[in-house]
């Protein structure tokens, strides 16, 4: 933000001085009159010169441009006169943002990877939707054949978007997949026909003023989505009917929390949406959003929450049971039934090191457990959790003291939760590398996870679950969990015993991950191929592009560039403050004593020195008026002084 100050706020940076000096710039094409030449610059010539420079980019023969240098020299006195208060505010805002992001970045919530399962039984070709490219601004739809090793078929359908893709959400309605894509200021929706081979079609894009924090696709109605923005607004977005704003409330619902993060998802009733912020969830009827709502979950005593516990990701579990919802916090996961709100049907402390930002549900058939995958971003953790819910009948909730937060209920964990392999874990299975390559690989594999998806694969009696994981570097990894029938001697274990090798889907930068023991030979082969591609990609030294350069040496005199003899006490103090702030994890707000007094910005203080008064006036755009006043008040003052003197003389 700071680096772009002049580009983002040109009015603030140059406006006032531009207004002061505009007489001295000439924008026309004709030659200047001789009389004006000494005080006026012809801008068109200057622009031509700059264009020439651009055209000569990459030419090693640098020709000096005296006119430009001369102009720079003229300007350097005032060009950097950025109002300090404004700059400080911007810097402060930016630092806060960076600091919060370092602690916990919630923008990829929901994950940017989606699996569109094959349509109809027996079909084996599904689609994987994920972002890629340098800026993660390309959207790929890749056909993937599910075999022993899933493999990419053909080249992916590709769309270039103008923003980093933060989230990809998908749902299937009436045999067609609807894919919602969220970047910071744009949300788009694609329709993907069920039959493979047909190209996905973009349907609509909306732009938001404030970054969007959530996009979910309705599992009930085609072309319907829910959008939330960081300003606290919740919208129902229908491709045909447009946007309907359901709520706009910058405040959080149950108690005060600073996070602008909002989320919304669908419920068992197609006209009722759930809305979440960090403090809890509410359900809203879209037909009368003001009147009809009820609380679904609240961080507090009812659910037995810990201190400081906050909602991280809600998910509608409609495919497992029409009225169940999942809520994850940084400590626990809850399963809620919207028919008996506020009292969780299941609670379990997940013990993950980073909050789970991604969740995926694979419904089990009748009598089978529901499989929930939880994923964290920074630590790449991946957890498989199985639970059973007495579906269909609302009944037999075990007695639980609501405040005791017990976990006996209609829902029940099936077997112990299981940790799956993280992306970084496959490093040890790769062939030995040269140290610098090894480091490169380590970096690449250690990139935070950006998404999670899973596909259920039924191969006769053998059932397996393919878990896809996307990293921020744009790689897609896959591991396979095979079902093992329950062993009689193990009385309470779940029905999905998992382990063996873990193969993958491949594409431009996509490969295979680790296995507990050894990766299968096929997986190892694919690793090797990926490694080759990776090292080739990295081996290309970035083409050095020549940019027009202006030497700074002559712009500043030697004296200007001289560093001050030693850190002053001021520096010392500031440094100490910074250090302290970092230790405490707080943010250092504008150091009160040390900073040079910022220019008084808003209220033009009467009686301030004439220069700042003048600058303020020109800042506000009424410089001419100021000048008038100034000159007239000057006349009046002189007259008064004259009269005074006369009176004194008379005495």
């Amino acid at each position, binding site marked *: 933000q700071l680096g772009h100050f002049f580009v983002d706020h040109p009015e603030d940076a140059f406006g006032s001085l531009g207004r002061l000096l505009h007489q001295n710039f000439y924008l026309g094409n004709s030659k200047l009159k001789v009389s004006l030449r000494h005080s006026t610059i012809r801008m068109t010539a200057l622009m031509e010169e700059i264009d020439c420079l651009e055209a000569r980019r990459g030419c090693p023969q640098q020709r000096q441009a005296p006119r430009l240098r001369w102009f720079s020299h003229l300007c350097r006195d005032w060009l950097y006169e950025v109002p300090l208060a404004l700059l400080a505010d911007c810097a402060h805002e930016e630092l806060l943002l960076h600091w919060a992001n370092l602690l916990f970045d919630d923008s990829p919530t929901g994950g940017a990877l989606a699996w569109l399962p094959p349509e109809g039984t027996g079909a084996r070709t599904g689609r994987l939707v994920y972002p890629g490219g340098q800026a993660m601004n390309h959207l790929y739809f890749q056909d993937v054949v599910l075999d022993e090793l899933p493999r990419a078929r053909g080249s992916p359908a590709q769309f270039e978007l103008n923003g980093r893709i933060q989230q990809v959400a998908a749902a299937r309605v009436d045999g067609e997949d609807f894919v919602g894509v969220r970047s910071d200021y744009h949300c788009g929706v694609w329709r993907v026909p069920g039959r493979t081979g047909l190209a996905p079609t973009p349907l609509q894009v909306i732009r938001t003023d404030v970054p969007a924090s959530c996009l979910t696709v309705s599992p*009930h109605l085609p072309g319907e989505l829910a959008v939330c923005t960081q300003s606290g607004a919740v919208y129902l977005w229908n491709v045909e009917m447009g946007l309907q704003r359901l709520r706009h409330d910058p405040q959080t619902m149950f108690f005060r929390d600073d996070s602008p993060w909002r989320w919304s998802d669908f419920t068992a009733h197609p006209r009722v949406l759930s809305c979440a912020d960090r403090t809890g969830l509410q359900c809203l009827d879209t037909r009368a959003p003001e009147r009809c709502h009820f609380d679904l979950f609240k961080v507090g005593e009812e659910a037995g929450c810990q201190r400081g516990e906050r909602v991280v990701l809600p998910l509608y579990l409609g495919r497992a049971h029409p009225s169940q919802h999942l809520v994850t916090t940084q400590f626990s996961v809850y399963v809620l039934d919207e028919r008996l*709100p506020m009292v969780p049907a299941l609670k379990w402390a997940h013990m993950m*090191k980073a909050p789970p930002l991604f969740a995926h549900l694979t419904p089990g058939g009748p009598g089978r457990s529901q499989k929930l995958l939880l994923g964290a971003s920074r630590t790449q953790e991946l957890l498989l959790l199985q639970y059973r819910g007495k579906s*269909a009948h609302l009944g037999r909730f*075990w007695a639980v003291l*609501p*405040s*005791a937060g017990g976990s006996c209920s209609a829902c029940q964990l099936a077997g112990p939760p299981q940790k799956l392999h993280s992306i970084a874990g496959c490093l040890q299975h790769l062939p030995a590398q040269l140290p610098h390559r090894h480091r490169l690989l380590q970096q690449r594999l250690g990139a935070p996870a950006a998404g999670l998806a899973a596909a259920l694969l039924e191969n006769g009696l053998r059932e397996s679950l393919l878990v896809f994981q996307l990293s921020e570097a744009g790689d897609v990894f896959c591991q396979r969990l095979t079902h093992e029938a329950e062993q009689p001697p193990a009385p309470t274990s779940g029905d999905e015993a998992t382990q063996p090798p873990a193969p993958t889907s491949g594409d431009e930068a996509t490969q295979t991950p680790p296995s507990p023991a050894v990766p299968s030979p096929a997986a190892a082969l694919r690793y090797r191929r990926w490694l080759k591609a990776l090292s080739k990609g990295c081996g290309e030294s970035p083409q050095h592009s020549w940019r027009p350069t202006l030497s700074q040496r002559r712009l500043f005199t030697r004296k200007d560039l001289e560093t001050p003899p030693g850190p002053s006490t001021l520096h010392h103090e500031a440094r100490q403050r910074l250090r302290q702030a970092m230790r405490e994890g707080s943010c250092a707000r504008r150091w009160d004593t040390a900073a040079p007094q910022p220019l008084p910005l808003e209220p033009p203080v009467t009686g301030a020195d004439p220069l700042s008064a003048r600058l303020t006036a020109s800042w506000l755009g009424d410089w001419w008026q100021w000048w008038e006043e100034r000159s007239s008040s000057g006349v009046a003052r002189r007259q008064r002084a004259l009269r005074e003197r006369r009176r004194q003389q008379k005495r």
Partner: protein
Amino acid sequence: SSHEYKLNFRKSKEACLSYIQDAMLQKQWKRAAEFLTFYVESLEKDFSREPVTPSEIIWRIGTEILCRHSRSSMKEFNSFIEQMKTLRVKRYLKVCLEHAFHLLCNGLIDEAYQTLSLAESWRFGEQTTIQDKEMKLIQAYRGLLDYYSWSKQKNILLERGQDGFEDLSVEQEMHSCFRKAAVNLKEIIKVPGVWDQFVKCYVDLLEFYGDHNEAHQVLNEYAYNSKFPANPNAHVYLYEFLKRHGESKKSLVSALKILHDIVPSHELMIDFNTMLQKSKKRKKRQLGLEVIFAALDYAGWKENVKAWSCLARQVKQIVVSEKHLDWIKQEWNSRKDWWPAFHFSRYLAKRNWQENESLAYEKALVAGILLGKDGKYFKYVSHQGYKAQMKRFRILKKFVIKHNFVYLRISG
């Protein structure tokens, strides 16, 4: 220095804990157990003031490991839990309760009962409110076990009664079980909470001894006390109780009406609708239509043949009589912008026809009336029915065409 020592100690403690968690999440119980023995050291210098103390962690993790480990025995488990009980006094009751649950899960009912009784007689200093609650829970669960042995003896008696025997000692024991159970169960359901299991058992006891008034009162209290969380089950129990005792239609309807307000998607709504449809009052029949429309709004009901046939029956009735078309119009108004896509798309017509013909039939009837004879759903299904030469689909088509004016009326 001591500060550094504390810091290092904490660091290694955390590292150890993360190793344990890692091992547990990968089902390496043996490794986890080994690390846990090291972790026990952290108890010695427990400086932490975190919400979850190491002693609690050891209890939780130890229990988990002993439950899963293939070579652990009940004896080991019990001795571990006994140690845990004395580790922190404040947690004594909680550990006892979970111990009892574990014993129950393994079928050791008598041992569980003993554990609960022992816990009940435990006293230590002044009771906090949390301990008070936990004590109530322990008593309630003991009551539940008393109920269990009561019903066992009841079954013995009933069996013997058939054979003409009478057994005074069994009967006496049964009555004493009843008294013990009733006292404890009655206590817990006074506290606001979700007590479905306890309430059901208590009501069963009361009903057996003919105390219907008390049972009714308990259920009423459980359903209508505003301090309790809104619990649909409470209304279901009340309704079932009223039905069992042949109460008047009016009270049944009012019980179900409240259930409808809380959970419009409850499966009892079909019963409710049938009951209301039979009613002579116009208002009730209108409510019946409202109820079935509201139930079909929910995704879980999409393929419920019973519900669709209820709706089809009532709609047909209204259309034939040509009275109260405004009821349909009123319900349809708030749904006409999304029901066609939600229920009556061509894709669904195709699928319903393939998977469940009678569902397709009922839905086609409703679609034909609500969306006219040119609606996608009706058109597809009636065409398929025509091709398959099925008589009822021919009659359906005639009916819809004859009453096509209804569609014009309600959509106008």
